[in-house]
């Protein structure tokens, strides 16, 4: 699939999570449960499932770094975590038939890994002092569910893109 469409799409997801989603999500209205939108990460995980681990690694690194610079307090945490998650997601064997359910399951797992990894780094470096229990129940758990659900339109778009552009190659998705 054409790179520029992918880049544009991932950028769109990236800006959606920072600027647009913030006014709409429950925590903006005072909810104790925090839904961290990570649409770009979902996009990268799904992309890695289609295009393999090296693309997952590269796109993960690029958008992780962008996140670090724009929103983060230190540079490197997201660049590392997103690249790792992209790589691992891309390493899942291709012969497993990936329907929407499996794809969303993998996205959920990837999101959980990503959130825990970033929380771990932030905690290690003293950037957040949030307790483990609170982080898991109020931040990570709702975010994983939310992102797995929100990944469905992303999945549909990715599949549409693949179906349109990769008719020559073997299709792994049905």
């Amino acid at each position, binding site marked *: 699939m054409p790179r520029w469409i992918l880049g544009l799409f991932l950028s769109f997801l990236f800006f959606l999570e920072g600027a647009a989603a913030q006014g*709409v999500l429950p925590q903006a209205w005072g909810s104790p449960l925090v839904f961290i939108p990570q649409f770009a990460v979902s996009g990268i995980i799904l992309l890695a499932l289609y295009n393999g681990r090296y693309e997952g690694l590269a796109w993960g690194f690029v958008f992780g770094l962008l996140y670090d610079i724009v929103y983060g307090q230190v*540079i490197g945490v997201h660049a590392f975590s997103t690249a790792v998650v992209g790589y691992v997601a891309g390493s899942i064997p291709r012969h497993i038939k990936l329907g929407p359910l499996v794809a969303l399951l993998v996205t959920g797992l990837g999101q959980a890994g990503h*959130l825990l990894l970033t929380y771990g780094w932030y905690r290690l470096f003293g950037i957040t002092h949030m307790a483990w229990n609170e982080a898991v129940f109020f931040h990570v758990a709702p975010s994983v569910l939310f992102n797995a659900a929100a990944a469905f339109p992303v999945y549909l778009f990715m599949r549409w893109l693949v179906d349109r552009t990769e008719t020559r190659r073997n299709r792994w998705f049905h």
Partner: protein
Amino acid sequence: MLPRLFANRRLFILLLSVILLLVTMGMTRGDREQLSLPETGVKNAAAWVQGFFSRPVQAAAGWFDGSSNQLQAHNQQNVIQLKAQVAKLKQENKQLKKTLDYTKDQKVDTITARVVARSPDLWNNRVVINQGSKDGIRKDMPVVTYEGLIGRVKAVTGHMADVQLLTDTGSGPGIAAHVQTEDKEVFGLIEGYDTKTKRLLMKKIPSNAKLKKGQLVVTSGLSDIYTGDLLIGTVDKITSGEFGVDQMVYVKPAARFEQLQYVMVVRDPVKLKLKEHRKEIDSQGKGGE
């Protein structure tokens, strides 16, 4: 041993990247006086794009706030659209009017800015505003809404600034603050935020001070960066401190941290001079040694 390590290329690369991560984190964490050029460029560009995204959403949020009751009666698209606009303008007007009053009362110079983005994860609570050093904003300036103090400027680029909110759990330096009792001002430090009860923690208050619920907590003029008498909140609960020799107070913040749209950056000439003075003394100290 070593050739074998090199043979396992994947492990080697992973280790290398972890080391690289630690190095960049070590270099970029903490308070930095200035951001590097590429960072500034990326941040400015991102803020510009974010402006396009955040405007319609904030408009929608404002509309949702203002006029959801009268919605059922009219379902014509035009009417709804106009209503949305009116509601938004009303809300904007209200906020800006309040802003004006606040500015008059406080007699400090403020720069009004619009919030364009908020850090999506809440590990660190930051918002991005659309005014930067070109508009007179400097690092460490306090940021308020018409309700009260919300945080301080953490990083600044040409056309935008990052604001660290008081709710950030990775606490920066404490804020010197006063509790205003009837006859005197009781000094303490605001350090940290309790996310469960949504209260700020004010520590190191002398144990002989008699405090009551509802008393006002304001910033102390003795602080390095905060202008004096900015409203922080009210006393909510009084407990004894960590070591039993002092008191700790749960402070209910006066400002809301949700749905931030317009904020004001406080420019206090005295604190700016103080900062320059400090810098000069620092450089003199280094020159003398």
